[in-house]
């Protein structure tokens, strides 16, 4: 369940990266940030959140144990 959720979100994020809907939009948000750049900065934060989910729900415990065994 946890791994499927993480993989599902990974695929969704991949598609969300292709933001063609703002391709020709040069509007600024907060008066200085182009909307296309603000969106991708938000995308970077979403990636960090996905990393946290991966560590919490899909951590490779077996592999860790295998590496630590003498």
């Amino acid at each position: 369940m946890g791994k499927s959720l993480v993989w599902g979100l990974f695929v969704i994020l991949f598609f969300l990266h292709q933001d063609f809907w703002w391709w020709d939009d040069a509007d600024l948000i907060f008066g200085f940030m182009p909307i296309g750049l603000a969106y991708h900065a938000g995308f970077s934060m979403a990636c960090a959140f996905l990393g946290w989910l991966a560590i919490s729900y899909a951590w490779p415990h077996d592999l860790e144990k295998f590496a630590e065994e003498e």
Partner: protein
Amino acid sequence: MTTLSVIIGYLCLLLALGFFSNRLFRGTSKDYFVASHSIGPFLLLMSVFGTTMTAFALVGSTGKSFERGIGTYGLMASISGLVHAAIFFLIGIRLWAFGKKHGFITQIQFFRARFESDSIGYLLFPILVLLVIPYLLIGIIGAGKTIEPVTAGAFPALFTNPTAPQWLGGVPPWLTGLVVSLVVLSYVFMGGSRGAAFANTFQTIVFMIMGLVAFTFIINALGGIDNAGKVPARINEKGIIVQDFRFDKESGLLQQNDPPKTIGRVIASENSDFTDKQPHFWREPIAVEFKTKNRKTGELVPFERELGIPFITFVTYLFIPLSVGMFPHLFQHWLTAKSAKSFRLTVIAHPLCIMVVWVPCVLVGAWASGVLPAGIPPPAVLSAMLNLLVGDPVLIGLLTAGVLAAIMSSLDSQFLCLGTIFTNDIVIHRAGKNKYSDKQIIFIARCFIIAIVALTYGLAMLAKDANVFDLAIWCFSGFSALFPVVFAALYWKRTTKEGAIASVLAALFSWLYYFHESGYGGEYMVGPGIVPAAICFGASALALVLVSLFTTPPSKKTIEKFFPK
């Protein structure tokens, strides 16, 4: 002169750090190559992040944004946040586990064992060296391009042949490249991978802090955050590209151009609604013509440029960040980890660190289009902005040290990794483990590092005008074409030695073909804008799957070794 003194002071500090890490050096080859697997989460994050962010991240991203606009961030930074973190999680932890369990120090040792083949090591060694060298070159070229503008006027009688007339008397790129190479060589020589991890951590902190400081000063000089958004070049109702502002260095103030200064014109665009738009703030491609001053004759010469990014290019760029899965220097950093848990912070924080560094650089590059001449070399944009907008020489020195920190935090790992793979995969592999003592092994690694530094320096002087961003993309393209080999080695039991060799050869020949077509390092797209890395990756993956299916599977012993239940 003050700026130069600050930069020299920073380089001396790094040398001191090298001496310090040398005191912690345990004297064994394992400590020299992988720091005895002792690096914790924070040092791992800083060294991995510092290694992946080089001149490409600061100098290259600012230059590319100056050329093509804010699409540069999505093109390389945000997709890297997703792909890099996934690779650290899926590839990095797994390789670390096998390295720790079976005593691998290099990638080639892993591949030799996984594919039960000596020949794959001899095939991979020259290819890895060939691909790391452009990565090293961008560091040395980037350093040279950064220092010259900020030291302009320091030695007018000594350095009389500048890259651009306004930089007369600045420290020339050949001298900067030489000094940077020697400093990096010194601390890698003394401290090995532990020294590189310490230096990387220190330098990563320096360049992140200095980047934010530079960003703040640039915003202030542009009249505050709201006004900065108005600065980039604009297209007027006649399709002429104009600069509405100029920065007056004497008063230290941004002033309105009345009338706006013409710098170029739109030649072609699919979008007709661009009046009063700032093309650096969108991603729709438009062809424009600018004019630049000929260095010798002073004549204005027209040149064409494409602003924005074709959508197909944007999509296929996702193949470029796959390269981190095959970087030999990153493999070495992964192996320095104390435990699998050390990776956790890197997986989460790496995308955020990328954001902190890249967003300001991309904004500065876009803003630069409104105050710098269009013909300025892209790698010089960041330092030209610092020189123009930040008046205080001490501050410029500190900010430039930050740029050098980003550059050197990659150079060190790359130099060290080449020494490591040569010593372990060629010398020790051929001679046998017991032929050399630990001291001799370290000596051999150091000698090879010196040879590589000398070779890289010579090549950097020959390619001194190369575009840092484009050259880096070629390096990454080669490594991403090799990605199917490492992924299949870890996740597909049926992958065979022959399949891996076919994949490496397909990656090599397809990459060489496109590299040649690009004129050896220029920007190059296939068809409607597909990046060559996508095609090289496809060729490599196809060769791997087809040849593996038609050849004998690996032995049961190997499968059990690399696919534990």
